């Protein structure tokens, strides 16, 4: 049993209201968040990840009847988003090693790099990787601590065919026991999900 409950959630940047009294309940493994640019998809994912505090309202994740405590939310979520980047000066492996040490967890870095197809480029500085490979590295960072909730913001952007295939496999695998939330405007990706939350319709 996996649940996501959004209650009366609002957020704004200065005067601009991005999310307005959003309420939504989801019971499943894969949720697509859709909507036009500026409708608040990325903001919603950042609030879910604990990176932004909403002005009001709350988001609750429930796995097998156990609520995830918001004060520990960053331990349970993995977020891959275009504006959350790794350190260009470090290699992909060094980045993951740093993130594992910062989180205080013993993670299988090689397994994660292999999962995203980056094992053969693990010793290249992230700044030297192509944009698509950088997206894979960011995905690896989101998967590193084996999160219960995986949040992916426009995950297939800049990915080639193989990359998209890898991404679909990751989504399949992670949604077997956890929740995957995809912010996307790609109909193929949205079609993989159990339910859609259209922020354009909510506005």
């Amino acid at each position: 049993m996996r649940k996501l409950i959004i209650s009366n959630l609002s957020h704004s940047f200065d005067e601009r209201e991005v999310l307005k009294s959003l309420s939504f309940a989801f019971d499943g493994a894969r949720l697509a968040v859709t909507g036009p640019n500026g409708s608040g998809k990325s903001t919603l994912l950042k609030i879910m990840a604990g990176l932004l505090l909403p002005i009001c309202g709350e988001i609750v994740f429930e796995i097998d009847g156990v609520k995830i405590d918001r004060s520990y939310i960053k331990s349970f979520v993995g977020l891959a988003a275009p504006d959350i980047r790794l350190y260009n000066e470090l290699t992909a492996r060094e980045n993951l090693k740093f993130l594992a040490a910062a989180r205080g967890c013993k993670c299988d870095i090689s397994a994660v790099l292999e999962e995203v197809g980056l094992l053969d480029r693990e010793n290249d500085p992230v700044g030297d990787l192509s944009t698509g490979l950088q997206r894979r590295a960011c995905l690896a960072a989101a998967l590193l601590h084996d999160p219960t909730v995986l949040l992916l913001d426009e995950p297939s952007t800049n990915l080639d065919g193989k990359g998209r295939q890898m991404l679909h496999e990751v989504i399949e695998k992670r949604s077997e026991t956890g929740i995957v939330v995809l912010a996307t405007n790609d109909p193929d990706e949205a079609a993989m999900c159990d339910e859609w939350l259209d922020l354009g319709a909510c506005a």
Partner: protein
Amino acid sequence: MKNIKRQSGFGNIVRSAWAVFAKDLICELRARNAISAIILFAVTSVIAVSFTSSVWGGDSDISSALLWLVIYFSAMSGLSRSFVHEDEASTSGTLKLAAQPNAVYLGKLAFNWAIMIAMELVAVPLFVLFMSCKIADWGMFTALLIIGGLALAVSATMAAAMVARAVVKGALFAVISFPLLIPVLASAVHGTSLAMSGQNAASDLRLLVYYSITIITTSLILFKFIWED
């Protein structure tokens, strides 16, 4: 799926802070975002000061004031980068997700202190040499430089975190830092002058230690609210 709860014990915060420090150090050694500017500024100022003011090298009051001016302005030219660079490179989100706020503060503080010591290792011997300074108490002089550097770093780290969100970062950093650092500069200049002339500077050193402890404690309480949105 297994969950790894974020550990919040002191040992885990220290290990996490060490990871942040090591990461910053490796990135700095590879990209040289701050250290080049700081050392260049320090060396240039020491040389400029020595050309015009070397006649006062024997006056401990003037020498210590000039020395700390060089250290202060060199520090201001680079320490603000610690958080600004994270925002500019879009890595602050990664750091926020991975490390607890206190671990980030302590890691950044350790990195800024290391930068201060590196700058002092270059600038102070040059200053002493070019200004022909006479140091009567080398032990106290060195201790004041190390602890004074820490006191500058603790305030600069907190100020850097605050200004990272602002639009006019450079100017704001100087404005916020200056009032915070007046007690540090006053004690450091006075203590260094006493150490140069062979008098007891223990009270100034103690004040710098107490100041650093106070600001670190306050920062550990407040940093979470500055760092997290």
